[in-house]
């Protein structure tokens, strides 16, 4: 039986240009706009309220958001005293990623009934020093190990292709965080790592087919082999991406504002990761393999 072939590799220049534009926009946005750093990194202000009435976290969020939309994404924690203390007043810690002025303090305490403002203090970003120094080494080492493994199992150019696709995905996803001004907190790091794992998996599946087809069809051109492999794995690519997309997209739509930065990265990641394994990671091999000959 004949499957209909889609020509992925013929138009590869167009997609390489699209990706180059996306990369340029992302890098520019990261350099110029930067990131909207969340509390985890930038620190912010912690306000502690006290109340005789037992509010739920959702109620507190609702009441504060009515005063200022800033509190929609605030980190709100309900606190209890350690066991053994008699006075059982409810305490709520509300942290926002901004350094509020003292004037805000008075306006807040006036606007809120039943909530007594107890303290107001600046908090440092706990994740800032967790990441900075070592993180570049971790990234470089991880990339080196991936390169070595793919070189052993495949060929050096496949390793280069996979790593370029990873860099492509990471830069574009981070660029989108910057462009849309989405709060950048610790969970974003996890989201980016997840998407890289996903994209790598996706890329290797296509590479594996290319490796196999090159042995079977020795006299065919590399363009043909790559295109054939992408087509053969296409049903799998679509079904896998769609199922993963369903999970992360429901998380984005119904997970609420607090989970948004995390779910956003995953959702964008599935799209970018799938795109890059079809249009970037494999077509890029053609040029490199031809160049070697």
């Amino acid at each position, binding site marked *: 039986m004949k499957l209909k072939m889609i020509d992925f590799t013929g138009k590869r220049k167009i997609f390489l240009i699209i990706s180059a534009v996306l990369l340029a926009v992302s890098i520019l946005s990261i350099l110029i706009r930067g990131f909207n750093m969340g509390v985890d990194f930038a620190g912010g202000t912690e306000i502690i309220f006290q109340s005789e009435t037992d509010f739920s976290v959702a109620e507190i969020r609702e009441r504060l958001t009515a005063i200022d939309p800033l509190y929609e994404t605030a980190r709100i*924690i309900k606190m209890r005293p350690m066991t053994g203390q008699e006075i059982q007043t409810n305490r709520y810690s509300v942290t926002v990623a901004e350094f509020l002025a003292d004037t805000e303090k008075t306006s807040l305490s006036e606007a809120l009934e039943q909530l007594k403002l107890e303290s107001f203090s600046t908090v440092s970003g706990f994740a800032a020093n967790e990441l900075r120094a070592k993180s570049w080494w971790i990234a470089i080492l991880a990339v080196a190990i991936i390169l070595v493994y793919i070189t052993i199992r495949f060929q050096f150019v496949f390793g280069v292709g996979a790593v370029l696709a990873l860099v492509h995905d990471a830069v574009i996803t981070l660029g989108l965080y910057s462009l849309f001004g989405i709060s950048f907190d610790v969970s974003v790091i996890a989201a980016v790592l997840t998407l890289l*794992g996903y994209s790598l998996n996706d890329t290797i*599946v296509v590479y594996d087919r290319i490796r196999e087809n090159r042995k079977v069809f020795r006299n065919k051109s590399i363009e043909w082999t790559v295109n054939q492999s992408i087509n053969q794995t296409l049903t799998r690519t679509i079904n896998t991406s769609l199922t993963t997309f369903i999970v992360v997209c429901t998380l984005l739509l*119904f997970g609420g504002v607090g989970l948004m930065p995390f779910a956003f990265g995953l959702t964008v990641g599935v799209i970018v990761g799938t795109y890059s394994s079809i249009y970037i990671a494999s077509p890029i091999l053609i040029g490199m393999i031809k160049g070697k000959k």
Partner: protein
Amino acid sequence: MRADRVRLIFVVLVITGALLALFWPQAGRSADTFFGSIFKNIRLGLDIKGGSRIDYAIVPAADSEKSIDELANEVVTVVRQRLDSANFTEAVVARVGSGTGTRIRVEIPGIDDPTVAERLVGKRGKLYFAEVLESQKSPTKPAKKIGISYKDAYWLEGKEKVDGESMWYLVNPYVTVNNAKTYLDGSSVSDARASADTQRGGFRILLSFDRQGADIFGRVTTAKVGEQLPIVLDELVLVAPVVQNAIRDGSAEISGQFTAQEAMELAALIKSGNLPAELEKLEERTLGPSLGKDIVTASLIAGLFGLAIVLVYMVVVYGTFGIVADIALLYNTLLLLGIMSAGRFILTLPGIGGIILTIGTTVDGNIIVFERIKEEMRLGKTVLNSITGGYAKSFSTIFDANITTILAGVVLYYLGTGTIKGFATTLIIGILGSMFTTLVVSRVLLDGFSGTLKNKWKPSTAGTGGEQK
């Protein structure tokens, strides 16, 4: 058929183990809600479950020249290192307030036992090697000695009791070597590890010095052969071993017959260096989830909803194969949760990212195999032959795709801290589980279901079939 039997038994054993780990009541763990009872054996992070918060005030030493800002930053770094080396990687350390009101805040997931973390945070961690001038048994601190040779010397209590009485050592922190005073402290230690003491029983701490430290230690031990060389931590003599011979390779051991917990905590204290200031506990509180209870509930429902859609999608697209994939998916999720509760790992939001990736790779692995089996069927092979052929051809795909991800995960685990480590843990366990479920569990299921599967591409008579979809 033997291979089938072995596989089936293995699959049943693994899942039984995982379910036992997940549901066997662990001491001190109870649950109040339905979801809580499912996950009661899994330790949840600060973001999902909450924990304890302890605030400390910084008390600078009297002779300290550093500003409170510098001190606070140093304290945060040291405390972070200590918690990491004692495996409290999910704990959060931050500074709150500014100027004289600066506080150090430590948040620890779970409310089981904040005392361990408190022992790590509150101690100075000042380690040094001292010269011993005299020692005696005494219930109270002996009187101060006067005399030129007792300059700089003071009495310190020993950790070990001898015949139920405290041992006191008159020590001098400056060890005299060839008429010169040398000083060797924790800053020269490049690594400290807890290890089992096979000779004396219990646990000991192995120290490695940096180059300069190794040099000083070599000279000190050469000069002090046959004498005691007490190791002092926070003004308590941990051990006072007699130097047997000169040690020039830059290694030392503190063999005080510690418990495993003690040895691990002491190693963490020594390795991370001493605190530049005293910390005074201000207040201690129990915290709700830092993501907010509303968000945790919403995302749990969203996650389960998404999972349900995936399960339905697979059955719709792949029929019987889809049922196999669904069972494999649930199998791997239970396996992952079982391993997390058995290994007492902490599940946080980044960990959930790892779980989502696991769901993705499990579904993916199954799809890869199914598509290969279908390709084999299109060639006209029987169902059983197609399954064998499909597995043989998809092995390298699944193997390479997952091993690359695991390798990256291992790097993240060993070098990362906090968030990244938590993510790497679930990633590695999840991907290994996904390889196992795809290659073994699904295989068992497919073999079981093979009777109900038909090869719709197999030509029943020559000339028909083959083209139909």
